[in-house]
């Protein structure tokens, strides 16, 4: 009789859920979820949907790329030669490796091995920072040459290009990372001195990440210096590109305008005239518009990834992960793989055009 009473009470709609004991919460389950599985599945579906929005966000840029390339294939073939395939390839390898360490970290979190998770995530962060460092060198080098987006494009293939070892732009890009490095390193030392191991290790990790950025910068600068010395011997990739004068002396815009107006006989005259008036072909700038938009947005996502990863790094140090609770590592890992994947598409589309 007593047991049937219990059954009835349990299934009666009038049982107050807040006071019933069937609903014991583990500390990591938010109040509105019933089970750890439900919470994990929600998070997983949520991050996948977020990735879908990210793909569509980049999708707009990819469509712009496709349309511009379809309309003006010659601009892409000419302009891509100014991109450094080897630095881009190096970055590709760095990101692929970071995906490996990220996956390693997720696996470790699933096993509840917080120490391995922390180390793997830290390596991932360092790789992300190396990527940014190399990218900073690439960007600043192009800015020096005047390979700028759209209307600001001012590259003149025939002009003398002073090759600075370290460009002013590069120093500007380095300043924020240097500040973060100094601050986190100081906080880390202070924390470790006062016995706050967790905070000390966390800030130490951030400082190491910033060092990764400078490692990337050094690699890029050394590579560029090699290029310049090769160029002086007239056998480097860059030299070849400039020597063959990839920028054709015809303005594509003028070309197009005249052919549309149908004045075929006037076209050579117009082309020559505009040639003299505008020696710099702005339509190459649109390639760099697309290049900076896509790689810039990607770089912003890398920075966002570093921030998210540092949160995971902190929680790994605090040993939050256990076999029934590792969702956040998984979610951030998925995000990180997507960021890598976008680069895997960007690299051939931008650097490897033939």
């Amino acid at each position, binding site marked *: 009789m007593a047991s049937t009473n219990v059954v009835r009470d349990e299934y009666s709609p009038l049982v107050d859920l807040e006071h019933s004991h069937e609903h014991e919460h583990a500390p990591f389950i938010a109040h509105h979820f019933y089970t750890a599985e439900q919470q994990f599945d929600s998070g997983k579906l949520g991050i996948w949907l977020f990735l879908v929005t990210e793909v569509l966000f980049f999708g707009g840029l990819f469509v712009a790329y496709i349309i511009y390339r379809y309309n003006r294939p010659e601009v892409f073939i000419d302009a891509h030669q100014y991109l450094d395939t080897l630095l881009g390839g190096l970055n590709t390898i760095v990101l692929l490796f970071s995906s490996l360490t990220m996956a390693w970290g997720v696996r470790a979190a699933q096993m509840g091995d917080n120490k391995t998770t922390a180390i793997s995530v830290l390596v991932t962060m360092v790789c992300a920072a190396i990527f940014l460092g190399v990218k900073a060198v690439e960007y600043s080098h192009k800015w020096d040459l005047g390979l700028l987006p*759209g209307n600001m494009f001012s590259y003149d293939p025939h002009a003398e290009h002073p090759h600075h070892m370290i460009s002013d732009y590069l120093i500007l890009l380095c300043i924020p990372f240097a500040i973060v490095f100094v601050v986190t390193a100081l906080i880390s030392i202070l924390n470790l001195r006062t016995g706050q191991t967790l905070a000390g290790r966390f800030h130490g990790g951030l400082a190491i990440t910033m060092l990764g950025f400078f490692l990337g910068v050094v690699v890029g600068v050394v590579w560029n210096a090699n290029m310049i010395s090769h160029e002086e011997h007239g056998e480097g990739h860059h030299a070849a590109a400039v020597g063959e004068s990839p920028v054709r002396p015809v303005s594509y815009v003028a070309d197009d305008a005249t052919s549309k107006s149908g004045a075929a006989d006037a076209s050579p005259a117009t082309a020559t005239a505009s040639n003299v008036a505008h020696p710099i072909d702005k339509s190459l700038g649109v390639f760099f518009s697309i290049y900076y938009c896509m790689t810039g947005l990607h770089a912003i996502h890398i920075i966002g990834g570093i921030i998210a990863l540092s949160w995971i790094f902190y929680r790994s140090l605090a040993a939050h992960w256990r076999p029934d609770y590792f969702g956040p590592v998984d979610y951030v890992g998925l995000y990180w793989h997507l960021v890598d994947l976008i680069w895997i598409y960007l690299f051939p589309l931008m650097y490897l055009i033939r």
Partner: protein
Amino acid sequence: MATVTQKQQLFGHAASNHYLDASRGVMSWIFTLDHKRIAIMYMYGVIASLFLAGIFALVLRTELYTPGPWFLSNAVYNQMFTLHGAVMVFLFIIPSVPAIIGNFVLPMMLGAKDVAFPRLNLASLWLYWLGGIFFIVVLSTTQLDTGWTFYTPYSTSSSKTNVIAATLGAFILGFSSIFTGLNFIVTINTMRPKGMTWFRLPLLLWGLYSTSIIQVLATPVLGITLLLLIVERTLKLGIFDPAYGGDPLLYQHFFWFYSHPAVYIMILPAMGVISEMLAVHCRKEVFGYKFIAMSSVAIALIGFLVWGHHMFTSGQSELTSLVFSAITFSVAVPSAVKVFNWLCTMYRGDINLSTPMLYVMSFIFLFGIGGLTGLWLGALSTDIPLHDTYFVVAHFHYVMVGGTMTALLGGLFHWWPKFSGRMYNEPLGKLFCFFVFAGFNLTFFPQFIMGSLGMPRRYHEYAEIYQIYHQASTWGAFTLGIGIFGAVMVLVYAWFFGRKASGNPWGAATLEWQCSSPPSFHNFEHRVIVSEPYDFESVIYDESVDGYIPVIPKRDLAPNQQPATATH
């Protein structure tokens, strides 16, 4: 079994400790994670935007009372209709039904305590406010005159107004919309309690689910487009600029790839609201439940393939126009499925002509006109003379205002007992519903006529033969304004002084009516009893709570059969 006081606690008017007074202070609202409070705060913003953009509309209509210029300069006139459109679209109509009614009702309808990601929900609300601030910046600086569509190259090179602030605002509002949609999809997928199967979901949830799919898939494209527009305007990128070999039409493709599906973001949740109210106030199971549910999904999916019908005259190829026109026609099929199913639901129903039901009937009538005139605009031959005339203006106002806004007002009346715990004044509610319906038709029906006579849209001055229609339209606009203002005032009055409502005053069978009115912080004080959403036998009137309570199904005290023991 349950005593009378227990019943009153669970299914009656919540005396205390409901979501509105669970905690106090401004901070408890700004930092709340409760989906109900978030919905209420959305409501303030959305209604304020409605009034603001409504005032712009009245100013425009007053100016158009005479054929010549009256009290607005050409520039101010352009800014007025731009801001009317932009504020209405981005701040009012896109968030309206999902953010207010969806946020409030969705978790309760589902039988959940909250949406899957309460913090993300709060982030959506903050982004909405932030986007609103950008529009206030636009209003208080140089304003905006590009039209709400921000077409290039005018918006990137010619306009002297604050395009950047407006597009940034729209960009931020887009993210608010994405997060809401993402949250709803995850909530409906993972937060359903036992017994809540996919085909037991109330139709509003199907509508919101379809809407959310569009929000997640289409809005990011708007986001990147607006970013490109901003960078184009500041740095002269050239992607949309023919001077550099860019393509200005690309902007239109990007924009309508979002903004046509966005039309369904506006109407699908409204259709869901209509399905709910219709069943409850006709006290009859929805006719063709699965067809209505699937037609929402169908509209959402087909809606992605029709954006080119906004560009029939923009210079795309004839073949492209032809294909887009054909696909546009196919959207009419699921829309008609809905309308016919609604009519069949009403047929031989026990129709209760309450205020929400009057709004439902207005909706069906106005959406019928708005939808059918859409076919004229989707047909290539008729679109060529009709495009950019008042016919288009009338068409989309019939769908957006006659559809979505009517559904929003009706939905607010229907769920007001749940929002506030109070009943509204029924006669006054009906009176202002009549004002809305009459005023709306008087405003926009003449616009069909003058549009077909050739009156172009967005013109500041017009030929005198159109004056009679413009005057009718202006009178109608003020009647509509009185109707909307009055309806909102009826609701505001009810919030403070209305008769106390029980948990389920309408006798509805969906789960949100199993909570007390207003609901407690965790929504359900009891285990959720999931039944068919439109099985009106599952609730029974109970005098002690002055409303309906669920019929508790009889159960065998002991199982009839022993479970088979597992063998190893």
